[in-house]
């Protein structure tokens, strides 16, 4: 019976459309909160962005909400006094978000109010957010953040960004891209005919570290997001890969094979002093710092098959962390330090994303497509994004850390891979 229900939820992939973006919900939570989000009232000429639509898309993307679009609403109140709660109960809405936009000298102000339909009362007093024409999307994301946090007590991630690699074939070309979490407003940070890999945000959200083969060999670079100014950090013989920022932003951990074997090193970005961390005739790669910065998780095949280990920097003491599955790699710790998210495969199974509870060692499988990789966790710790392959095309997927839901982001022109979720700004 359980399987039957699961099958039904998975088959009911629903399409949620937004301006230029379509997320596909592969697996929804059993009881998403139903929220009616009417179009934002505006008397001027058509705006470049539909704020109501962006908010609906954001809330749906979170997996915890199912937004009810304007065409399904019976009435369209503009103020609290115009609300007939019965009209919203009829369509099974639990909450109602209404708002309006005014414009003055090129500045836009969006005001919104949130109501509880069941209890028939106001949840949020009227709040106003303003910005220029190019910030209409930011305004919408800010409103989504506020609504999400008010109703879930979890900080919203709709104003955060992602960086990803978009790869093209014939001729081979890679682009390092920055966009909103919903994939909108893509902006190119760097382009090369050679591979680009492993982008990671600095903890303060101002820089990105990545690997580029632009010199025909791999090297690690750090680039400012605002200015585009780029600095080469390593250019050793052999591997220069998998950069990872320390939580304080002062160091990068990475894999180098300058001493012949792939080993983990750290570099102090101010002094450029390198410290070797691992020493084992095996592959040691994919470092990821513990939340407190005292240790590093990394992938190693020292036990023949790739598994994740953790080294304590002060002592060098190394312990194996993953045991479930014959392939565990590229670990990332959740912001609360409690879970390790990684690429996991069981004998005969697919590559999928799993989360391991670090205390109990129990793992839960979060995705079930084939070739899922590169998990990156949202700064609120509730969601993660990953790269997957649908019909031979690389796209991004997102899932909740509790394994309850899964969505797909709209595809791009090229193959999208290696998402990196920004911190809160």
């Amino acid at each position, binding site marked *: 019976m359980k399987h039957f229900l699961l099958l039904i939820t998975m088959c009911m992939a629903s399409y949620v459309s937004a301006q230029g973006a379509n997320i596909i919900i592969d697996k929804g939570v059993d009881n998403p909160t139903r929220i009616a989000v009417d179009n934002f009232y505006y008397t001027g000429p058509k705006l470049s962005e539909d704020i109501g639509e962006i908010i609906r898309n954001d809330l749906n993307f979170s997996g915890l909400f199912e937004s009810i679009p304007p065409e399904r609403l019976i009435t369209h109140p503009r103020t609290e006094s115009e609300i007939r709660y019965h009209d919203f109960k009829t369509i099974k809405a639990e909450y109602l978000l209404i708002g309006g936009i005014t414009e003055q000298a090129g500045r836009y102000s969006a005001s919104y109010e949130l109501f509880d339909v069941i209890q028939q009362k106001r949840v949020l007093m009227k709040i106003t957010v303003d910005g220029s024409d190019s910030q209409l999307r930011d305004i919408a994301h800010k409103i989504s953040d506020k609504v999400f946090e008010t109703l879930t007590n979890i900080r919203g991630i709709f104003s955060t960004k992602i960086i990803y690699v978009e790869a093209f074939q014939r001729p081979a070309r890679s682009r390092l891209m920055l966009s909103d979490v919903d994939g909108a407003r893509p902006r190119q940070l760097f382009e090369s005919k050679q591979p680009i890999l492993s982008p990671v945000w600095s903890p303060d959200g101002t820089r990105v570290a990545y690997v580029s083969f632009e010199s025909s060999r791999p090297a690690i670079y750090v680039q400012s997001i605002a200015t585009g100014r780029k600095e080469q950090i390593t250019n050793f013989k052999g*591997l220069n890969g998998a950069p990872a920022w320390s939580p304080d932003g002062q160091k990068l951990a990475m894999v180098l094979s300058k001493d012949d074997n792939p080993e983990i090193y750290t570099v102090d970005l101010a002094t450029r002093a390198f410290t070797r961390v691992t020493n084992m005739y095996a592959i040691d790669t994919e470092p990821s710092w513990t939340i407190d910065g005292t240790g590093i998780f990394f992938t190693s095949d020292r036990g023949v098959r790739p598994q994740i280990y953790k080294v304590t920097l002060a002592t060098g003491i190394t312990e194996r962390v993953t045991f479930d599955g014959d392939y565990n790699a590229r670990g990332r710790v959740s912001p609360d330090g409690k879970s390790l998210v990684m690429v996991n495969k069981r004998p005969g199974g697919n590559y999928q994303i799993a989360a391991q509870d670090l205390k109990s060692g129990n793992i839960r499988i979060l995705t079930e497509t084939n070739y899922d990789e590169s998990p990156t966790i949202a700064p609120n710790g509730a969601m993660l994004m990953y790269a997957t392959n649908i019909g031979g095309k690389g796209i991004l997927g997102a899932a909740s850390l509790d394994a309850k839901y899964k969505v797909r982001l709209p595809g791009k022109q090229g193959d999208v891979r290696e998402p990196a979720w920004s911190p809160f700004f």
Partner: protein
Amino acid sequence: MITKAIKQGLTFAVVMAFLVGCSSASDKKKTTAAPAQTTTPVVQEAAPVVQEVANVVYFEFNKYDLTPEARAILLAHAEKLKGSSVAVRLEGHASEEGSREYNMALGEKRAKSARDFLVLQGVKAASLETVSYGEERPVATGHDEASYTQNRRVEIK
């Protein structure tokens, strides 16, 4: 004159040995399109055999130790490279299975296995450069075992 003939015969024997190795390799990998060598060695001319040496060696899933077939091919290269100072680039690659950076390290280990073997056979280490492209430069783009078998490789360039 006689010694030259013997030498040629020996070289020929070595090449034959690896060709046989290759043919058994392609038997194992039934579905792969073309691990480089034909299965029916042509016997007529012995002179330009060295040029026929495959410049790709293949690896098993998640492994970087050399298979007997790979050793035979590298041995033939070593014969050619010994005493010469021609710069050779060994490019390590991996199939798309698993994570990208792990595959980058896997490609590196494969390239270095090939390098270490060549050096052991007397090729100058200084003339050998290794680089890994991980899973970024597949020769076969299918998402199946047939493609993966061709992508787990080191190219001798």
